[in-house]
């Protein structure tokens, strides 16, 4: 009934691919554990495939669409030092967050 097959089980390679997408560096033991647990959870979740949803619109939010527009006016906001205060290695004087070098 499905246009494509669900993965019956997760391999360590599948888990590595998802972890890369999610920016997570996993230990080998975690890879094995998650392969098993994600497989279990998804095979349980597959019961939703049995529900007839022909013509049913998806619900992304229960709120009726409403406008949240406001006038585009300058208002007080966080001061720069406060915004940087929790950044590891932030350069307070220059006003920057710092990250490892990205360009050679």
């Amino acid at each position, binding site marked *: 009934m499905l246009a494509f097959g669900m993965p019956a089980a997760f391999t360590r390679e599948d888990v590595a691919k998802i972890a890369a997408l999610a920016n*997570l560096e996993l230990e080998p033991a975690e890879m094995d554990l*998650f392969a098993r*647990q994600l497989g279990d959870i998804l095979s349980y979740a597959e*019961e939703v495939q049995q529900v007839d*949803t022909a013509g049913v619109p998806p619900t992304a939010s229960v*709120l009726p669409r409403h406008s949240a527009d406001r006038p585009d006016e300058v208002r007080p906001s966080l001061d720069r030092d406060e915004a940087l205060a929790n950044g*590891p290695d932030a350069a307070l004087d220059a006003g920057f967050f710092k990250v490892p070098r990205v360009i050679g």
Partner: protein
Amino acid sequence: MTIREVRESIRTGARSAVEVCRDALARIEALDPQLHAFNTVVADRALARAGAIDREPERWRDAPLAGVPVALKDNLSTRGIRTTASSRILETYVPPYDATVVTRLEAAGAVIVGKTNCDEFAMGSSNENSAFGPAKNPWALDRTPGGSSGGSAAAVAARLAPLALGSDTGGSIRQPAALCGVVGLKPTYGRVSRYGLLAFGSSLDQIGPLTGTVHDAAVALNVLAGADPQDATSVPEPVPDYTTALTGDVRGTRVGVPRALLAQGVDAGVSRALDVALDTLRSLGAILVDVALPHASHAIPVYYLVATAEASSNLARYDGVRYGFRARPDPGRSEELRTMYARTRAQGFGAEVKRRIMLGTYVLSAGYYDAYYLKAQQVRTLILRDYEQAFTQREAVDVIAMPTSPTPAFRIGERVEDPLQMYLADVFTVSANLAGLPAISVPCGFTADRLPIGLQLTGRRFDEATLLRVADAYERETAWSKQPPPILSR
């Protein structure tokens, strides 16, 4: 003491706000080493604030929470007070601003005593996913207080504070309230501003109160509810005075019971307590009606597909750049940006958070989006329609009753090996989040071994007044919440 009693004693001059605050802090000091309900206690700040209230009695005379000690779940931003979400990744994070609910509480005179323990980023049903160790259930210290707002529920149950705030994405206020024998209210989606709540599932999250009585929940909701320009999902519905809804009268109120949904998987003691509670409501004049919620049985998979998808996106911001923790590179090696992100997150997040980020990333990824995420959103529509029908069809009901949790508090460690088993415990709570409806858990008795049981009532959108009226009428008749947990008599 309840909020009502604290207010009464301060208003009449029987006690000062500082005395009330000292008592709360002394109880925390005496009991929290066993309960671990708090991640952070701010004793000096609380006493200073209570002192300021005592110095200006005229200004605070009519403030609804003046001098009332309040505990905040540690995923609510507090300016100048560490806010960790019980995660290593935010262990040292100090927000530069207050959540709107915090601003509202303080404007009403509340005295913040500390930040409560919870499952990491509110992901869990037992508090065992806290990076700092689980909170304990005041009714049985070897059992979980439930989750994710377990510290908030334990704090109110052990009388450490008469009011605590929690957040509820799939039951995280109501389930711990049930397991600890207190009242927990999840308001309608959009009723309370979420500005400053550390986001988990943005289409589901809602902030609400945990209290000793239904009356106190109404007082708290009066303060918390209302639109906020800082939260575009808050709704400009009028806010009634919820305490005026507490008439004690449920004659003619129609209470729906989804019998088919309750047919299996419910602990025998919980089942019996529900039946007795329903009889009590009937004896007070309520009319019991069978309702069909044919899609509610799919709520758990739908919830875990939708909530993890949203979480994987919301938690992408914790990358070692702007908040607290950053992993250090191996000595002598320069590091790439992506490696820094991945290591920071690997070291900063616990297992359940990683699991949910992985699941959410997967269901949103190319090739699986339609099969899982879109499909789940379609079934979500069907779940929502079931409730709409129950509340509006010809035989419409005013509230729907079921147990809050299928079981009483379980032992710490009992379910940690099996995440799926843990998820199944949310069977009765997740639907209200998926449908955006208000729901309350009120104590409805005890199992044979003296563990609290909760009755859950779900209502129409923005009709918290009816929920509170029915719960209050039930509570007046039964007063389960007057029974103290054993930790208080040691």
